[in-house]
Structures are given as C-alpha cells and as structure tokens.
C-alpha cells in the first residue's frame, strides 16, 4: 500500500490568505451599511457563512471555526481574548477587525489541521 504524505500541513496555516478572504467577505456584507438592529442577525450569519465557504474552497485539510462579533459604535468598551490548546506547527488563527462610522466588527478564524 502506498504511503500518503500530508501535503500542505507542512507549512501550517496561512494567516494572511485567510485575513484577505475574511476582509473581503466583511466588506461585501457590511460595506456602506449603518448599524441596524433588524438586519444584524442576517449580516453576522452571512459574514460567517461566506467566510467559511471561501475558506473551504482553499481545499486544505482543516477544520474551521469562525466567530463574528458586531458591536454598535458607542462610548462603551468591549474586550475579547482567546486561548488555544493545539499543535502550534499545524494549527493557526487569524483575527480581522473592521469598522465604519456606526459599528465595529471582529472576526476570528481558528483552523485546526486534520491529519490524513
């Protein structure tokens, strides 16, 4: 039986590529929009689903977790942190911060390698 060699995991997660993909998705969904309570649900769902779809199209053997937080821009503070227990050589993360006049959007992508 032939041995299957792991292809792309040797170089780990490409954070820059993911960053670009997610930024495009967010621009597409939220670009030019103002904060609107009615649409917010739909927007976060679109951002997350589109990002996930584009990441999958890269064709790499990864499991993905995409989280999105959209906050109305105000005087009020907001903090986020994450802590991960994984294999640092193959797994990775990427965070995209986006803002406009009325809202802030933070998208986190976590990618965990599948060993084939």
């Amino acid at each position: 039986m032939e041995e299957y060699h792991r292809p792309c995991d040797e170089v780990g997660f490409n954070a820059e590529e993911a960053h670009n993909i997610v930024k495009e998705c967010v621009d597409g969904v939220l670009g030019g929009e103002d904060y609107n309570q009615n649409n917010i649900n739909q927007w976060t769902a679109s951002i997350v689903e589109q990002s996930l779809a584009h990441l999958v199209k890269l064709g790499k053997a990864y499991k993905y977790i995409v989280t999105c937080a959209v906050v109305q821009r105000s005087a009020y503070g907001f903090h986020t942190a994450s802590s991960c227990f994984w294999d640092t050589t193959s797994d990775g993360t990427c965070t995209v911060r986006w803002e406009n006049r009325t809202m802030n959007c933070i998208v986190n992508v976590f990618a965990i390698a599948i060993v084939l």
Partner: protein
Amino acid sequence: MSALAKDKLFPALKKRGSVCSPGNHEFRQKEGHWRSKHSVSTVSHSDEPSQRDETSRLTVRVENTYQLGPTKHFPVATVNHILKDVLTAYLQEAEYDPEFCRQMTKTISEVIKAQVKELMIPRYKLIVTVYIGQRDCQSILIGSRCLWNPKSDTVSSYVFRNSTLFALANVYAVYFE
C-alpha cells in the same frame, strides 16, 4: 543536542513579546501506547496575527491508530459548569473598567483553558474565547459557525451578566483526527 535541533524543538523561545512556560504535556501515540512528551506552550498577548518562524517547523509523523472516533466524548455539561464557576468567581463583584477588563479577558481565558485541560480528555484540542463588554444601552451580536465533524466536535458556552458588564465565554473542542 546541536543548536539547530534545539531551535527546532523550542521554536517558541525565539518569539518576541510572548511568555514561554514549559510543563504542558503533548500526547503522541506510538505503537498503541500513550507517551507524554515535554513541550513548550506560549502565551502571547499581542493582538496582531502571530508571526511564525518558517524555518523552525517540526514535522510530526504519527502512526495509524485505526480509531474512527473518540473513546471518551467531550463533557459539555461539566464544561458549562466550569465556565459558570470561573466567570461568576472573577466577575461577580466587578465593575466595568477598561484596564481591569483587558487583563481579565486574558486571565479568564487562561484559567478556563487550564481547568478544562485538567479534565484530561484525550485527543481533544481546545479553543477558549472570552468576550467582556460594558453593559448599557448598546447593541451587540456575537455569532459563530464551525466546519467540523459534529459527531466528535462540540462547543460549550456561558453568558454572565451583572449591572455594569456582560461576559461571554465559549469553549470549542475539536477532536484530533
């Protein structure tokens, strides 16, 4: 051990702005037996995407386990209690303050990760995220989607609220296939 091999084994020591703490165990299966291998964990508080040294990548080759799924599933209820306990303990009496909350988010995520690791559930990778925000008349929506195997992977979540702040903690558990 040569300097190059040492660099390969401890790549994290070359990173700037992060703290290394040896002592965490990384499990590697070989010939059906668990062996614990000393590895280094890093705590990085930078909010830029982490820069990784391309030359110091360690290629891990594991043998076939012929295991199709986890022998022990992730205990969601137990972890929910852990989240509830940690958030309540740290934030019950707290008032929103930018510096305090900035430190708290990092501390709480590390504490939760440590407590869930103590449960010693084999072959699960963990991602803990914590959101803390000031509470008063603003609107916020936090959502997530995951592409994984729903039979083995899961998420656990808890929201804590008091008069001045709210806190959301999520733990994503991904089975290492």
